[in-house]
């Protein structure tokens, strides 16, 4: 976990003080709402359908137990006792009062938390693998690089007023769990032919109304150059990105319009003069940041201890949860535990203040005080000793956080939709809730295998529907809520956009349509371990289209 020092703490405190002053000027009328809007957005505050929403940054999804308790406190004291974890590893609170916001920010700042750059046209929270630092398949800890980038891009004097928002993701593992190819900049740490570790730089990915898979403009960038190169990309975008049309303002449009090669040339022209300047990272600077990360003092343990073997043999429910929600850790005798925030009938990603406090206690007792937020809107205890798994499972069961549906059909990613969001065209949470009821049978869910459903309540695609194995996009048609259905999307290293299966279907029929698609898959697959995506790749969308529209 990254530990703040005096510098980090001072900055967050100064930010909270500045924000208090801005709110005071708004409340006194010195600032109009129009003038205040960009200032509040720079602190993560949106004006939603019913109230102000506060989005708090969780850099690369990493939280200490004390920070989690602070989030619980904010939920209790300033909101309606719950918070919503987002697809960008942040948390948002939906019922905040403007006059109380400065106090909430102060409470957050004391725990090293803030809302800086969680909205507005700036560089947003830098995300990474939720298993960073503990995943067996990573070549190094990507959080060090996410943190270096976070610091460099926080309150950046040149890049705080970009044409549009800007999202960066970093991965260091063979399997991309950070969806880097659908980000404005995706960075993949890998080893080149000479055995050196550096970055593949991908730009111009993104979802929204014009989805693109990012293009690689630099197959291998030495580590020392990562800040200067990112600066060159941002400088190119800041000067030449479109500002005349909000829907064409993301970097993906600039990359597409210029072509990836011409864009890379522009970036190179900006990069050459600065690459050997103050942004060149010497190893001492990297080491200083890496030195702020504390790693657990793991005990010397062995895999599959008797406590675990016994529980797996004697308790089928534990065995099911273990098989689904527990993942290999790089330290022997330890495990990564995913906590499902997708209970039957629940809004995806929500947690109550009581759950947050209890998770913090579990983290202290069993996970070296550390918690992660994943982009699939679940939480992670990253360092649990395998011998403690039965106890952790019992505790999570009691909290409603042990639904063994990670990666399965009911582990749905959904945006807040029309229940909260002022941009939404349709509801999305109730669709997710209904689907979790339809697929409540865990044996069925297990037998379906890996199947990701993503739901967005409007074309802005916060639910990442384009890269869902089944993607549902809510649109409004003649005053009715209808959904476009895509299949075959994925967000990992083989990222691809889903294919539309046919005309939009009414809100009331969406769950039936998903059931039809799932039934068609069960009939079409050639063996039980051919996952949905593989079946779609093999047979195409046509058989699914026929099934869904034959009777509609």
């Amino acid at each position, binding site marked *: 976990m990254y530990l703040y020092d*005096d510098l980090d703490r001072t900055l967050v405190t100064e930010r909270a003080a500045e924000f208090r002053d801005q709110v005071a000027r708004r409340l006194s009328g010195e600032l109009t709402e129009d003038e205040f809007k960009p200032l509040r957005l720079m602190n993560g505050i949106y004006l939603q359908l019913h109230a102000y929403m506060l989005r708090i940054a969780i850099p690369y999804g990493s939280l200490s137990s004390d920070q989690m308790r602070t989030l619980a406190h904010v939920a209790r004291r300033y909101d309606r006792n719950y918070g919503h974890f987002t697809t960008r590893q942040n948390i948002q609170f939906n019922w905040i009062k403007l006059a109380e916001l400065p106090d909430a920010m102060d409470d957050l700042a004391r725990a090293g938390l803030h809302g800086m750059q969680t909205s507005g*046209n700036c560089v947003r929270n830098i995300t990474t693998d939720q298993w960073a630092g503990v995943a067996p398949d990573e070549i190094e800890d990507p959080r060090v690089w996410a943190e270096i980038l976070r*610091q460099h891009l926080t309150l950046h*004097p040149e890049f705080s007023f970009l044409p549009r928002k800007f999202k960066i993701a970093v991965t260091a593992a063979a399997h991309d769990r950070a969806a880097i190819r659908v980000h404005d900049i995706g960075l993949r740490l890998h080893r080149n032919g000479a055995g050196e570790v550096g970055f593949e730089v991908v730009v111009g990915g993104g979802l929204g109304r014009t989805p693109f898979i990012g293009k690689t403009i630099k197959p291998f960038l030495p580590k020392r150059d990562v800040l200067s190169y990112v600066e060159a990309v941002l400088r190119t975008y800041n*000067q030449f990105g479109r500002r005349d049309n909000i829907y064409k303002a993301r970097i993906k449009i600039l990359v597409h319009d210029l072509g990836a090669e011409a864009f890379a040339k522009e970036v190179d022209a900006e990069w050459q003069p600065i690459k050997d300047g*103050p942004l060149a990272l010497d190893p001492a600077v990297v080491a*200083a940041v890496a030195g702020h990360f504390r790693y657990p003092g793991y005990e010397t343990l062995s895999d599959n201890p008797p406590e675990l073997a016994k529980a797996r043999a004697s308790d089928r429910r534990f065995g099911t949860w273990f098989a689904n929600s527990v993942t290999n850790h790089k330290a022997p005798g330890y495990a990564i535990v995913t906590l499902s925030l997708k209970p039957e009938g629940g809004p995806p990603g929500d947690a109550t203040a009581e759950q947050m406090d209890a998770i913090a206690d579990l983290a202290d007792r069993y996970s070296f005080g550390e918690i992660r937020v994943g982009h699939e809107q679940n939480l992670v205890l990253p360092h649990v000793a395998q011998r403690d798994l039965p106890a952790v499972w019992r505790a999570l069961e009691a909290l409603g956080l042990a639904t063994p549906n990670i990666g399965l059909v009911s582990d749905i990613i959904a945006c807040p939709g029309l229940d909260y969001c002022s941009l939404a065209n349709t509801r999305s949470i109730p669709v997710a809730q209904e689907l979790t009821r339809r697929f409540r049978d865990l044996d069925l869910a297990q037998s379906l295998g890996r199947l990701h459903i993503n739901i967005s309540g409007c074309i802005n695609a916060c639910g990442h529907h384009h890269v869902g194995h089944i993607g549902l996009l809510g649109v409004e048609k003649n005053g009715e809520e209808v959904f476009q259905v895509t299949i075959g999307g994925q967000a990992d290293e083989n990222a691809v956009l889903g294919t539309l299966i046919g005309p939009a279907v009414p809100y009331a029929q969406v769950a039936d349509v998903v059931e039809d698609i799932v039934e068609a898959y069960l009939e079409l697959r050639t063996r039980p371990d051919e996952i949905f995506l593989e079946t779609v790749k093999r047979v195409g969308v046509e058989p699914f289209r026929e099934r869904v529209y034959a009777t509609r």
Partner: protein
Amino acid sequence: MRLVRAGRIVADQYVRVLDDAPIPEGVPVIVPAARFLADAEEILRREASTGVLWPNNRRIAELAPHLDRLALVALEFPNFKDGRGYSQARLLREQYGFHGELRATGNVLRDQFLFLFRAGFDAFEVVKDADAAVFAESVARYSVFYQPAGDRRIPALRARLQHPRTFATCERV
């Protein structure tokens, strides 16, 4: 509008010349970019200082050959959200080595001061009097900066290396 320079409200010595008006002799002027480029030698031959108002959608590199004879460059901020001028400013200061007055003009408000200052601006045409009055405290609001920029302050990454013990981490975050 109030002009803030070197942290203080001052009188503006420059006269803004429009595209088709005659250029007065003997007084410092700010000339629009297109007109300047069309007649640079003639304009620069005058006795008094010359400034150029550069639009934010034109490559600043075009101005580079003239910079050593310009006393001032004014960059435009048509609204709070349009940040192109920040990149132009840093290029002027850090790559082209411009040492003259770098002036922010347009809709310049209090909450931009620090960003502008750090990008290398040293003069500000401030829309609201109340904002101009609090310029000094606005740019002093932060004491920590993470990145190197046009103002040459020491960024946190370097400060940590220079004074490692001053910035001890807190074990409980």
